[in-house]
């Protein structure tokens, strides 16, 4: 039977109409709405029992207590731990992105050996063997150095004890205001204990450069204290940072001139008859009164004398004022900055007072470890300079949780110095710039995978101790560095007097009088001990440094700005931090530097123009953003960009401002300072 045209059309039309009466089209339509929601390439939720595990964040030195939400024992999201004094339920953008960092593409997935520029995987045993061989020739010769990026962990005690056993005292912390304070307070002023600030009880917080509410010290706890503030917050610094945006007052001061401003305040406060009992006070006072006169301070800082006078009066009138001096970007300050700030607190009678400057005791658990406060006074930049000069020749350099190749001033010099060191070992969770150049990369677990601790993070107003408990087994082949070091010591036959890292921590807890079980359960120990000071001295000789005139070859002051969401000195922008970067911070591959209309006009620069910041140390490329958040003759530049290692979330975005920071030597301490770098801004 043939099918004619009509029959065919009838069949088609009839078939089409008939199909509508079957469930087929309707079922298909229904399915479409399901498919279009759940395509196979859309990740599925992985269900499991929900839980919460408290721990302590180690992504920055602030030591926040976190509550990690888990699903089927997997960490899922991070929140602040409400009962922890340093977070009180708050969290910073890095902490909030902490869990996802477990699976960051930049993680080191196992021990790596650098074979002529290419990494090859090795086992932990091989790594131990290689290192043991290297070090067995070193024993006692002391040609080993270590750079630590962990400011407050007890792991430092294990590492320092190991280094000491090898006969080396070249233990360096990455520079920060914590190390600057240790030098100024403990070394130069003869102070005891660690400096802290009791913000919670203060009614007048004067932030001298220290960007308390954005990036400085125990930042979340600072923000919490501010949130429940009892009085005024004044921010002194060159840029309207997060602190300045909410402070009751912003006092623009040229970068690195906060100390001069402080001494300008001291002038009025001394005139008002305030005094303190530190040794050398009379001479110190005399010097301030003759050299830091209002007109001179005005000329050096750019702040009208009247404003200085007003703030001095407010400080005197406040019941519980506190002065927090620090670097705008958390490092690079000299002793003068810290001494000037401490001096104001002393003048106002604020030492170890509620709402004032406090000195907190330190506790160590490893007997064979040198005093960490002492080690904090070792200057890494001096070490770098010594190596460059050939005064020091380390054969092996350990780098623990630090990224010196990225986050030190004069990056080019640092790179050339590290090149001179024949064998470098990086203990890093991520393949950062330093790890990428190391001879061995021995991954330390993400803090959610390891046991660790934080003892009284710098800036805290009271002794605070909390522990990081492992929330998940390492998702990659990483090993806690203290454990590895203990194994290595064993292989070398070195006795550190330690059985395990956990024992060290529980011993520390015991010394503090804290309950180890409770600490592991996420409870922080808080102590109320303060250190009485008996031999404070005021070093007049450092005062001359503040009067130095600026360089005319590099006429623009560089104000680096630290914004945790972009990353910090040891962490690049985490995957979940990327969207927090603002439009006026990054455009495609270029980052922005910021200057105000007047400065831009003076330099002939327009919005979005390409420029280079050139200093004696190096240069970086950027786009111009014209904003009135920056004072005249200053260019503000965010730190955290310009990564060359890491992953697609941070690599190749913008340029690294650390490379432009220039160090100058502070007289007479010989310390290196880089919070007052000067640059030329030229069209690129």
């Amino acid at each position, binding site marked *: 039977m043939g099918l004619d045209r*009509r029959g065919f059309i009838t069949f088609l039309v009839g078939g089409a109409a008939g199909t509508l009466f079957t469930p087929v089209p309707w079922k298909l*339509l229904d399915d*479409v*709405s399901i*498919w*279009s929601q759940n395509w196979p390439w859309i990740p599925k939720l992985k269900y499991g029992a929900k839980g919460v595990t408290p721990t302590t964040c180690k992504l920055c030195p602030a030591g926040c207590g976190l509550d990690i939400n888990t699903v089927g024992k997997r960490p899922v999201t991070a929140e602040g731990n409400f009962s922890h004094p340093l977070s009180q339920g708050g969290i910073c953008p890095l902490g909030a992105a902490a869990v996802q960092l477990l699976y960051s593409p930049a993680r080191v997935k196992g021990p790596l050996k650098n074979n002529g520029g290419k990494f090859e995987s090795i086992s932990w045993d091989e790594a131990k063997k290689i290192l043991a061989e290297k070090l067995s020739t070193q024993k006692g010769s002391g040609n080993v150095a270590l750079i630590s990026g962990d400011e407050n962990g007890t792991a430092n005690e294990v590492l320092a004890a190991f280094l000491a056993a090898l006969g080396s005292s070249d233990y360096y912390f990455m520079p920060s205001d914590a190390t600057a304070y240790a030098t100024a307070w403990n070394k130069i002023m003869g102070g005891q204990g660690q400096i802290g600030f009791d913000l919670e009880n203060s009614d007048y917080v004067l932030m001298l450069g220290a960007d308390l509410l954005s990036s400085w010290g125990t930042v979340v706890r600072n923000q919490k204290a501010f949130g429940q503030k009892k009085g005024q917050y004044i921010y002194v610094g060159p840029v309207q940072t997060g602190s300045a945006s909410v402070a009751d007052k912003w006092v623009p001061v040229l970068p690195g001139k906060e100390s001069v401003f402080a001494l300008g305040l001291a002038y009025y406060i001394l005139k008002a008859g305030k005094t303190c009992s530190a040794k050398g006070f009379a001479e110190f006072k005399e010097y301030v009164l003759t050299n830091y006169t209002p007109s001179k301070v005005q000329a050096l800082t750019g702040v009208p004398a009247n404003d200085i006078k007003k703030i001095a009066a407010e400080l005197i009138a406040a019941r519980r004022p506190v002065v927090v001096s620090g670097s705008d970007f958390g490092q690079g300050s000299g002793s003068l900055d810290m001494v000037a700030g401490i001096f104001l607190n002393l003048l106002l009678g604020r030492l170890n007072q509620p709402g004032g400057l406090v000195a907190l005791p330190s506790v160590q658990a490893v007997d064979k470890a040198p005093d960490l406060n002492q080690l904090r006074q070792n200057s890494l930049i001096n070490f770098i300079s010594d190596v460059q000069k050939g005064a020091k020749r380390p054969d092996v350099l350990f780098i623990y949780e630090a990224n010196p190749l990225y986050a030190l001033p004069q990056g080019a010099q640092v790179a050339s110095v590290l090149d001179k060191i024949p064998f470098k070992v990086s203990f890093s969770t991520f393949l950062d710039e330093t790890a990428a150049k190391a001879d061995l990369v021995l991954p330390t677990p993400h803090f959610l995978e390891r046991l660790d601790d934080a003892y009284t993070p710098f800036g805290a107003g009271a002794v605070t101790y909390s522990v990081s408990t492992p929330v998940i087994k390492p998702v990659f082949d990483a090993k806690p560095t203290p454990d590895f070091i203990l194994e290595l010591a064993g292989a070398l036959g070195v006795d550190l007097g330690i059985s395990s890292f956990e024992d060290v921590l529980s011993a520390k807890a015991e010394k503090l009088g804290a309950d180890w079980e409770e600490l592991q359960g996420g409870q922080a120990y808080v102590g109320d001990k303060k250190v009485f000071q008996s031999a404070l001295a005021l070093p007049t000789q450092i005062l001359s440094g503040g009067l130095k005139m600026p360089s005319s070859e590099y006429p623009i002051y560089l104000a680096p700005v630290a914004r945790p969401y972009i990353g910090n000195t040891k962490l690049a922008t985490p995957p979940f931090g990327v969207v927090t970067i603002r439009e006026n911070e990054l455009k495609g591959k270029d980052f922005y530097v910021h200057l105000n209309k007047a400065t831009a006009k003076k330099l002939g620069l327009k919005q979005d123009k390409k420029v280079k910041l050139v200093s004696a140390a190096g240069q970086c490329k950027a786009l111009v953003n014209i904003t009135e958040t920056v004072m005249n003759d200053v260019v503000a530049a965010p730190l955290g960009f310009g990564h060359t290692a890491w992953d697609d979330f941070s690599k190749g975005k913008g340029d690294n401002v650390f490379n432009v920071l220039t160090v100058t030597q502070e007289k007479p301490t010989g310390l290196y300072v880089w919070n007052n770098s000067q640059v030329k801004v030229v069209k690129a």
Partner: protein
Amino acid sequence: MLDKEWIPEGVERCSFGKFIVWLGLIGAVLLWGLYATIKIFANGIGVTGLDNYFGFGLWITFDLAVIALGAGAFFSGFLKYIIRVDQLKNIINLAVIVGFICYSGAMLILTLDIGQPLRAWFGYWHPNVHSMLTEVIFCITCYCTVLIIEYIPLILENRKLNKIRFLHHLAHNFHVYMPLFAGIGTFLSTFHQGSLGGMYGVLFGRPFAFREGFFIWPWTFFLFVFSAIASGPAFTMLVATLMEVITGRKLVDYKTKALMGKIAGTLLGAYLFFKILDTWFWATDTLPRMGLTFDQMFNDVYGQWLLWAELGLCGIIPAILLIVPKFRNIPALLYIGAILDCIGVCINRFVFTVQTIALPVMPFDKWYSYTPNWAEWATTFEIIAYGALVLSLSYRYLPVFPQEKKLNS
């Protein structure tokens, strides 16, 4: 050749080879568009230049513009079949084809433009009766069906097809009922044009577009209907003229063209009266009540020149050219008037689509500008090529222009 048998009786067409070359050119554009279409369906709308601020861009502007310009179909139909302006029979077929191309083209673009084309039918299944877009979805699909119904008899009049008895009778019956479809079409299209305008007018969060209501409708509802019928006939006439230029044959007599121009011009004049009133009320009453000024509605990119171009250069001037018989009877001026008229309505649809969402409403927000990228252009040209294809085939094989034989003899 076989091809010859399909060409309408008594008219001349170019050689089949030449026609194939022409189709090849169209095909090249279609392929480019197809490539973009595949990219978009495979990867998502992210491959276009659209973004968070400009969720609507070239596609929606193009849709709105072609739908306005396609209004020649329903309005000519309305005049021919309901008002009985008999002279329009000379161009009504073309008007229907152009209308069909515009509407079906717009629907094709929409399948690209919505993020979940597989769920497009949700508009029927879960309609939100409060949404102007629901009205748009219903009207556009229904009216597109009507246009197909209007187009079918024309196809059936093809020399070969018409020889089939059944199809011959079918075509005849369609013709008998054409006034009914013209009526339905008029109703649907009026509401469609209106609801497109209404879509913007109801946006009370968007001061640039927001127009207070007239009963339940915002002013833009009527303004869009008005501007569509003021430009649609002009566009149909321009298409006829363009075809004449391309084919080198006379297709429609000038009298009919001038009539189309007159219709468009008269309506444009009336439209402008209301549009200017509306703009004045908006600038002096609506905006200040929102705390805004007329000047704030514009920036360097989306400047006031757009408004002056729309209302003046492409509004008042073409209205004069088309209304005044002395101008209208000069072909060059008639065509210029018609072109300006069409540009004017495109500008109108553009600003309502793009400037509406470019205007920063939050005082701390800023202006952004939008540039369509290759994927949007390629698909837009794909639709234009699709139109050219339909038009070429229709012209070659269907008796579109009743006057053609007479005018070229």
